[in-house]
């Protein structure tokens, strides 16, 4: 017995103008955030934005990946607290390379120095945390940092948190990123 969906697809392919629609119109609709939002509403499709933490995960995937489904990629928080600033560019580039190779995650970088340029280079989201040695408020720094990270986990729908050491990514970090793609 032939699958009815396949039968329908075969019929659709015979409709005049089908190929034009498939090649020109459909890609445009897919690329249009407004059209996709409308489709989500009409068909009540799970958009992938709502997360188990109750937050949203429609954060940017950066500027390296392309195609449909970016908003469904898991969000990975890379915590670079205490990482020497001259290491950050190298770390970000390695993450970017892994992202292109696997197309499996969206990174967010948490830094404690305003080293935005190497992160902005790939269009990734950066979050800045006040470093411990600059923290003079009554609230303990750990409480502040924990609250900020918790807020990010919830707000961005973070799937995994990687704490990157001062030497950059280690094999555990790489394996975790590779696990997503």
């Amino acid at each position, binding site marked *: 017995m032939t699958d009815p969906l396949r039968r329908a697809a075969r019929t659709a*392919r015979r409709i005049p103008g089908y190929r034009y629609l498939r090649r020109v119109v459909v890609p445009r609709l897919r690329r249009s955030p407004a059209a996709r939002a409308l489709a989500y509403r009409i068909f009540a499709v799970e958009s992938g934005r709502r997360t188990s933490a109750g937050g949203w995960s429609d954060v940017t995937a950066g500027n390296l990946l392309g195609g449909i489904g970016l908003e469904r990629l898991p969000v990975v928080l890379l915590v670079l607290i205490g990482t020497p600033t001259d290491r950050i560019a190298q770390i970000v580039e390695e993450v970017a390379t892994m992202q292109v190779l696997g197309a499996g995650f969206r990174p967010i970088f948490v830094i404690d120095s305003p080293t935005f340029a190497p992160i902005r280079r790939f269009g990734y989201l950066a*979050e800045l945390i006040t470093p411990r040695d600059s923290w003079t408020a009554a609230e303990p720094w750990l409480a502040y940092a924990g609250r900020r990270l918790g807020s990010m986990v919830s707000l961005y729908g973070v799937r995994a948190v990687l704490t990157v050491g001062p030497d950059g990514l280690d094999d555990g970090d790489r394996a975790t990123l590779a696990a997503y793609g």
Partner: protein
Amino acid sequence: MNLIDGPPAGPAGRTVDVLDISDLRFPGGTSHSIAEEIRAQADAGWTTGLVHLNGPLVARVRAVNPSIRALVNDRRAQLIVGREPVAAGVVVVRHPAVLQTAAEQLPPIATDHLVIVANAAPHDIDGHQHYRPESVHAAARDRFGVEPIWAPIGPLVRATIAHRVPPGCLRSEDWVNIIDVDAWSHPRTEWRADRPVIGRHSRDSPQKWPRDPAVLRAVYPDDGSILVRVLGGASAVEGVLGRIPPGWHVQPFGGQAPRDFLADLDFFVYFHDPRWVEAFGRTILEAMASGVPAILPPHFEPTFKDAATYAEPADVAALVHRLRGDRAAYEALVARAREQARHRFSHDTHRRRIAELIAPPGEVRPAISGGPAAPVLIDTSRPAVLFVSSNGAGMGHLTRLLAYARRTAPDLAPHFLSLSQAVGVVAAYDFPFEYAPSSGATGMAPRRWHDLFTARLDDAVRRIRPAVVVFDGTWPYEGILRVRTEHPQIRWVWSRRGMWRAGKNIEQLAKAAWFDTVLEPGDFAAPFDRGVTVASRAIRVGPVTLLDRTELEDRAQARQRLGLPVGPPMALVTLGAGNINDTSRDVGASVTALRSLGVEVCLTRPEITEAGSALPGVHAIADFPLSRRLHAFDLAISAAGYNSFHELLRFGVPSLLVPNTATAIDDQEGRARFAAQHGLAHWLGRVTVKAVTPLLEDLLERGPAMVARAAALDPGNGADEAADTLRQLVEEQGRDR
């Protein structure tokens, strides 16, 4: 062309011998061919770089093809990401359609040799044109600066493009696919079953199968006389026959390693839709290397010559049975196919064609770049003021707040929360700072981003407990109102400049009700202000600049600090941050005109500019605050944003103003017109060499007089008044609390 070159000089870590450019996500032969060429290059000792383009043929987000990914992980090739320049001995672009549609994703690439591998015909089966060779050629020449050489993958593609590329730009030999024969070879000492076993592997696409049911049945029998095995799916067969014959063994694409699949066949039989131009047929080459005789339609003969056997569809079954009955003939066919594969499609074939273009390799080193300094300690012993800046096109909001903040010291303790990634400049003034990503930086829908901003502002307010919050921006975010409701004891100030475009942003003005005080930094061009703020209530202070004139370095000192030569006349060209619109054409014209007048050029690299590059032969500086060193310059060509405009006029730099008309609110043109009408500066809507040259000559001659007129208009730096206002608000807040 037979010139032997090494790669051009390029940045460390981004210089390679061979640069392969393609959409690296393709699931089939294109990616496998790239992988095979990488192996050949690596074995020869050449370094390979890969630049991935998100092309039009892959709709969904998808990983790089596993065969290429494995080579990157094994460090046999380097995936190059980012927009920094790349240098390569030779660039090989595979799939012209990718270059046609995605060239804007490329970084700047320096190379002496560019090969465009035409691995598909321009037209698809239904006449759809995937690429235009003429357009691709022109785009490639513009992008790479060298004449591309077209390299068709086989005779069939050659025939479709030969008349569409310029004479002399078509490689005489085809850029055939290559294969490591030893890696694919599989010994065949006996038949696979009691009947002939034929098979094929390809993508599951209608064009990859015969479209005529009779032809399909003739080539791939469904009567059980021959066993048929398929790798790659056969849903297209359903479309032709109405079902997949029950005796066939069909696996999906990727269901088995092709090498193992081929090992289980006696014959590889590949026929497709006659309307389809199969560019090469990599799977055929794999079958030949494996040792499976390939039976093909005659049109493949120019490509594979006597490495395969050719037959009309009606003759295929008979041919299979005949060879099945003559083992010696079968083995002779196998040996001939393998020999041909080694001779014509081996790694050596590829090494020879690369060696025609480049010399033996050099080494590649990874690049490491630095970053700015860390933030500094907060002072909690004085009343705090929280300065909140939005992220405009430049650094204006942040700089203006900094101007206020440094003048509130030592009475108050400024603290910054900015949506600008340039927030680190605050560290130079020993003020603590925080960053909250803007809506644009997160990619989040604005409605949800407001929740983020509200949370960050609320968190900062609870921790810092400011007496006053000052927001500088033209669009107060709703989070301000929400946080203000929670913290009514704080004084809220909206710092917003005037000179809004006429009739623009009226609805934003109503948000003045969210604030206790509206502070308006003055504008030299206020008489030309036609915006809605003119009639609104505000505390108006003089034009605000970060520095006062007395804080500027003298010419010699400034030039020394900026690393500029002391002698020659020098112009500053600062046409706004690069993330509103592309000013490169204005920059180019400005540089040309200045050079023709014997004036050296200094270009700025604003910290928040996303992608800027200095033109060759000019100076590039990145400095904050640059206004401290404005005396280094004899004249300036600048956009007419609030800060630049007032710094140039206040600090006496003869200026040509080029208003940025792409700003949402700021009436830069009004500012520029005012300055020109009052003899304070010149202005141009768009820079051309012809138009700008006489104006620059005039500035060089009469600039000092214009500067003097501007000085006469200056009521003094409004930042001091603004700081006084903030102190008063802090006092009021303390009394009320």
